[in-house]
């Protein structure tokens, strides 16, 4: 069974982004975390086995982290990657 990968864009409350970041890094399904500037504050890439797991992670974990204001989930359909 193929894994489902998704990007979750997170907007954090002012002053709490560091805390959000540290909480996210504890999560097993998280493959990469990036701190960005612009409309969002944090971009997380997650890898899950099914949509149920993605729902669990977003609704029951990420949304409950103190400081998370808004999330936007984008499921990856197809990707191209440069080697190395």
């Amino acid at each position, binding site marked *: 069974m193929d894994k489902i990968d998704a990007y979750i864009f997170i907007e954090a409350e002012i002053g709490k982004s560091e805390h959000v970041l540290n909480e996210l890094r504890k999560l097993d399904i998280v493959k990469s975390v990036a701190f*960005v500037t612009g409309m969002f504050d944090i971009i997380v890439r997650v890898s899950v086995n099914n949509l149920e797991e993605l729902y669990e992670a977003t609704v029951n974990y990420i949304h409950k982290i103190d400081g998370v204001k808004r999330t936007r989930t984008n499921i*990856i359909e197809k990707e191209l990657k440069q080697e190395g």
Partner: protein
Amino acid sequence: MVSKKAEFYLLALLSGVFVSFYVLMDSYGLKALVTDPYVYSFLCEWIGLITCFLYLLFLSIPITINGKKRCVGFYLDPYFQGLKIPRGKSLQYILGAGLVASISTITYFIAMSFSDPSMMLPLMRFSTIYLLIVDFIREKDVPSAIEIESILSVTLGAFLVTLSKGEIDLYTVIITLVVMNGCFTIYTIFMKKLQEISENGKKNDSLNLRFWSLFFLTLFLSVMLIPFLDKTKIEMIQKLFFSPIIFLFFTINMGFAFLSYVMYIRALGKGKMSIVNAIVSINIILGIPLTLLGVKLAPHVFEYVSYDVFLWIIKIVGTIFVIVGILALSLSEVKAYILLRVSSKHASNILEKIFRVRGIEYVAAVAGDYDYVAKLRIRTLGKTYNIIVREIEKIEGILQIMSLPIVKEWEYP
């Protein structure tokens, strides 16, 4: 877990370290063991090829890592899956690489026989300049000021570090600059190409690339050496080939060469050719303590080393240039996420079109708020703007572009 960037710099740095080890050994060997450069190169490459084959056999031993079947060589290159014979396009490039490498090897040994490592190391690094030009032609990209600055700083620094009082023979300089570095540049381009093509969906691994390019190098070299080998030289080869000390010396020497090439080829697969070569220049710094070590261990061989304070100050200034150049290169990198929305009537191959924009290292089609998520890696923010405005906007169907520069990022295996 080592980040990708750290892995790239580590590979290139280690490659540089191993180069300085074998250059030091060559300079000792050519002065103390085998003084004839033709005999030396013949022995060196044949013994090197035999030991390289033995190393590969050892590295092909199957083991189990985390429940997966791998080879011992997995630790040196994750793509390694045992010895395999090159085919098709790969074979053509390996043949080409072997041919140019054999020419640069002969020139290296001839030049080495009447100069010393302090002169050879900077002359060997001149190919960085050639590769800089090739990289910019390949990527159809205007070099950023920081790239030119850093690479010049490294290369000029390298020249200062290795200044010596000895007479510089113009003939040696010309053949090393033109023939040796020219051939090495072509070798590097072929190796980079070999990393990009794959046969039957399998990527070429650095261990096989090193072995097969050495295999053809040795064959071509032997053919080229025939006119230079007279009866006395052939007798010398026969006698020395079976001498245990000579065999051990070349086994170690070519062991360092093996490691340095494997790391060099792997690094080439991960970044720009000129930058890999600039980082390899770190070995020039190491050349100072290694040469001093040589003086301690074999004073009669390294008698040319000077104790002039002025010369050493210049060398230290050169070292600083090299370090600053490499630091500037490694620190001046900007990454950004680019989020895109497209119109519903867009062309079907938009994913490939975005991927073809230079600087884009990753692109994904997503379902959600946006349609595409791309990742950009570039030297300066100014360039980011140029790429987004000029190239992505030109793609038909793009409605909205949002760029989010990355401040810091973590990756997990």
